[in-house]
């Protein structure tokens, strides 16, 4: 009876043990994965390693330079060696995580017959006109003509000349080291025409540490797919001034050619408006000696804010807006002049605000008040106005005067107001800026997503990230192989895709539950279930260990 009872008890204990083990197995094999799966957030995989690789990206900006030697430019035995290619590489020292290297790949060759003919003509302009036609140069490339030392193409005291297109002329030399000397001159000229440190520094101004590059460098507008240019005529006193401006004609004549030349850098739209009763925010100071009014230099920042609200936001697009304001001061405050730091009136009577636009004060000629009754009809001299606004526009786009090597002649301004190599220089700078922006965006996105583990990453966000990474890489490759146009397009794509990914609304969905709330919800279920399972597992474990030791002892 007792033995039967013990056997039954033993059976019962073994069955209980099995049941407990089975419970634990079900909970672990089925329950945990199920819970994990159902509460998981969807996170598409991202190329984290590639993104961190972008930070250490080495940008090689290759500028293909074709160097054409005319007959008497270098000694004859040197000419025998032509054609060949020299690469001049130099690191641009910027405190930026990307290493930027600038490579001038100089392909030396002899001049063709028509080039010889053109370069033997009387003046540089004629030579250019003759050289221009058959050639269609790729964006970013340069052609340098080396002419004989005593050629009369350039004035005698000038060593080099930079043309309006992608060409330059350098004086040759009859010397044993002719190629070295000329090579240095060519690099100087090519640098002035393409990439210099300060151009890149201005482009990367947002990404560089503050101290080195002052606010002055931050003048250019940030790179964007397009820009809106708004001209506003501010007439605070329509009772006395009836202002008329031929903005349509001025835009057609002066602004549009410039923007057409700049077309590769983005889409532009131009519009204009007239605002009445729009006041400046500052009361000008009266100067009794000259009986005129003055705006101090330090008060200029306060001028913009009150006007800004009247300018109206652009309803039609999301591109950055450049504002150019022409302010006709009210009768009580005219004439009005802007004073610089030293107290002297500014010659143009205009000032600009970095990344915002420019303001010009247009004083009505005091003679017009004498004869007629109010309101006086005022015809704005658009040539004077547009000169100032176009200069400001160039500054705002970061088209600065190049640092010319000594004894270098710069060609006169073109009808568009923009030289082709200036556009190239802008594109180089913008490509680098775009790459830097895209890289920063991608890096911070990757950091954010890595840090907050329960953000949902949808497939389309991931695909934008992949696209952006690919575009950055493609752009870097194109830059390294000297294809500026495609590199710029790729860099724009990179920025667009990376911003799309970064600002995707799906990243902000309501899935951020704090940990304490999660515990509050899980504990009523997990605690009562887990405690018996764990306790029985511990008990089984202890018992089996005991039962293993026992046989050992008996042995």
């Amino acid at each position: 009876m007792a033995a039967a009872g013990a056997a039954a008890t033993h059976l019962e204990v073994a069955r209980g043990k099995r049941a407990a083990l089975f419970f634990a197995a079900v909970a672990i094999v089925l329950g945990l994965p199920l819970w994990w799966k159902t509460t998981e957030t969807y996170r598409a995989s991202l190329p984290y390693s590639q993104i961190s690789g972008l930070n250490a990206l080495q940008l090689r900006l290759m500028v293909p330079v074709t160097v054409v030697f005319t007959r008497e430019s270098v000694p004859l035995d040197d000419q025998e060696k032509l054609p060949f290619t020299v690469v001049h590489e130099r690191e641009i020292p910027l405190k930026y995580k990307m290493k930027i290297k600038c490579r001038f790949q100089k392909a030396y060759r002899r001049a063709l017959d028509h080039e010889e003919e053109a370069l033997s003509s009387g003046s540089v302009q004629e030579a250019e006109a003759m050289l221009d036609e058959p050639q269609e140069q790729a964006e970013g490339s340069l052609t340098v003509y080396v002419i004989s030392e005593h050629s009369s193409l350039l004035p005698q005291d000038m060593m080099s000349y930079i043309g309006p297109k992608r060409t330059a002329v350098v004086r040759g030399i009859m010397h044993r080291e002719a190629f070295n000397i000329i090579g240095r001159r060519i690099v100087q000229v090519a640098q002035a025409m393409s990439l210099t440190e300060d151009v890149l520094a201005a482009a990367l101004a947002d990404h560089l540490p503050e101290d080195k590059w002052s606010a002055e460098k931050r003048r250019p507008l940030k790179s964007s797919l397009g820009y809106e240019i708004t001209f506003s005529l501010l007439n605070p006193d329509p009772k006395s001034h009836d202002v008329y401006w031929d903005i349509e004609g001025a835009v057609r004549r002066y602004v549009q050619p410039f923007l057409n030349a700049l077309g590769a850098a983005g889409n532009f739209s131009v519009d204009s408006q007239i605002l009445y009763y729009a006041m400046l925010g500052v009361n000008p100071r009266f100067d009794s000696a000259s009986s005129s009014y003055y705006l101090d230099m330090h008060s200029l920042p306060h001028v913009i804010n009150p006007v800004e609200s009247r300018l109206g936001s652009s309803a039609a697009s999301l591109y950055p807006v450049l504002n150019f304001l022409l302010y006709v001061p009210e009768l009580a405050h005219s004439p009005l002049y802007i004073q610089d730091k030293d107290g002297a009136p500014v010659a143009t009577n205009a000032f600009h605000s970095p990344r915002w636009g420019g303001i010009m004060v247009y004083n009505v000629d005091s003679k017009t008040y004498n004869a007629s009754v109010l309101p006086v009809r005022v015809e704005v001299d658009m040539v004077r106005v547009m000169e100032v606004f176009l200069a400001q526009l160039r500054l705002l786009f970061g088209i600065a005067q190049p640092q010319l090597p000594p004894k270098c002649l710069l060609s006169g301004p073109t009808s568009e107001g923009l030289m082709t190599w200036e556009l190239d220089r802008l594109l180089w700078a913008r490509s680098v800026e775009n790459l830097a922006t895209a890289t920063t965006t991608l890096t911070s996105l990757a950091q954010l997503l890595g840090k907050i583990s329960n953000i949902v990453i949808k497939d389309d966000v991931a695909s934008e990230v992949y696209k952006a990474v690919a575009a950055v890489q493609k752009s870097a490759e194109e830059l390294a192989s000297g294809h500026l146009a495609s590199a710029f397009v790729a860099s724009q794509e990179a920025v667009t895709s990376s911003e799309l990914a970064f600002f995707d609304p799906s990243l902000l969905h309501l899935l951020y539950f704090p940990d304490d709330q999660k515990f509050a919800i899980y504990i009523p279920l997990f605690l009562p279930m887990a405690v018996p399972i764990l306790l029985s597992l511990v008990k089984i474990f202890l018992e089996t260990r005991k039962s293993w030791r026992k046989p050992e002892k008996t042995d």
Partner: protein
Amino acid sequence: MAAAMPLALLVLLLLGPGGWCLAEPPRDSLREELVITPLPSGDVAATFQFRTRWDSELQREGVSHYRLFPKALGQLISKYSLRELHLSFTQGFWRTRYWGPPFLQAPSVWINLGRSSVMSSQGSSAPLSTSSTPPTQSLPLPPSNPWVWPMTLTTTFCAMLCCRGRWSAPKTSPPGRSSCPVVPRASLISFHLLQAGLSVLLKADRLFHTSYHSQAVHIRPVCRNARCTSISWELRQTLSVVFDAFITGQGKKDWSLFRMFSRTLTEPCPLASESRVYVDITTYNQDNETLEVHPPPTTTYQDVILGTRKTYAIYDLLDTAMINNSRNLNIQLKWKRPPENEAPPVPFLHAQRYVSGYGLQKGELSTLLYNTHPYRAFPVLLLDTVPWYLRLYVHTLTITSKGKENKPSYIHYQPAQDRLQPHLLEMLIQLPANSVTKVSIQFERALLKWTEYTPDPNHGFYVSPSVLSALVPSMVAAKPVDWEESPLFNSLFPVSDGSNYFVRLYTEPLLVNLPTPDFSMPYNVICLTCTVVAVCYGSFYNLLTRTFHIEEPRTGGLAKRLANLIRRARGVPPL
């Protein structure tokens, strides 16, 4: 309806006006006008209108140089190829029953885009031309992003427009135009900066101390000539306010500009080609001795406005003599004999709307349409947009007048799609003379997803007002006038024939309570479920894993042990 916009902070809106008064033929012109109407109830209504007309085909020429016409609005029109844009923000409710029909009534927020009709200068509505695009049934929204629209409007008007779902357009339109989606709730913070002419009177703290305040922007194309070969764009910015006479006037019904606006008129706007103040001096009992306006008007204007003959005193600010005398113009009206408290004339058409029913499941929307004309019946076009979360049952639609069923001559119903599109119900109902017509339809309240509730769901959800459009028979025959010459308030809905006039009314917006869940419910449910599961699991687990021992029956119990203790103490052998 003041409750309908608790958040609304309405400030003046007048987008940057520019001007062009010069020797060349002006391509755009500005007319401004103020109409002051003493209302039958004793309140005073003031309606400002600023009308900019620009002889430019915005959409065809790719115009980008703006003068008087505000740039932001022009860009909206040309970018999205809009045909028309109407936007209004209103606080308060126009009481048609007591105040008479309004010149232009607007619900709290009302946006209307794109119908392909052009008001010709003769006053009738004419389609643009057959070569132009067909009438837009769907709105010209950018297809990818339906939010762009409210967003751009939001930035332009500094308003917050909450818009759910796609917008839809009614199939027919009342003469001229038709309204589209009504967004019953919005907040508006906007600005105004014009310092001459009539707009000196626009002082925000006065204008918001009023019983009714409505500002609107209407943009539409108008024909430049009779054959409509070219069009101009017209921008009307209107502001209507109703001053409570008993607050501003210390119990008297006399008023003056200074008392109402705390400003007087000082100078005409140098940009405006017309700048006038009209004061309604019609007396109801045909006796000219009851009221007096000061300064005495130089001219008066008589016309049939909204079916009744009215007389207006005209003050033309461009007339130099008007202001030069005292450097300011403060128009005053004094009642010589206080008008008897006679019942004000009831307008021929007015309406009322309410929700009935109890509980949170079902309800009924009822609209009462009053035709008080003694002998004429007229048709009314009733347009209802009901949000999808009120599920309408069209078979319960009943229309009764004078106790008999009234069959509408036309019904267009477009059912709602959940979260996409509201119900759209459009009916043409004949209102018998001297009758009340009740239109009722039952609905069921839908359950929203818990993230779709507003932050204050117990406040209720707004249902936009119904829109009534009707040609109401006129008491006095009106003669068609030249549209460009007549005052602005008269030209909004031009008279097509003299015997009746066009009226559009809005009923009250409704506030409907939806079944609101307890928002902590998900947590409670989870906790309760977890506890139940845990309890079941515990007993199940116990049952399966517990081992049962067969206990040897222990002999004796506590009594025996006690007995043994005692026995041991006594030295007796235990049991």
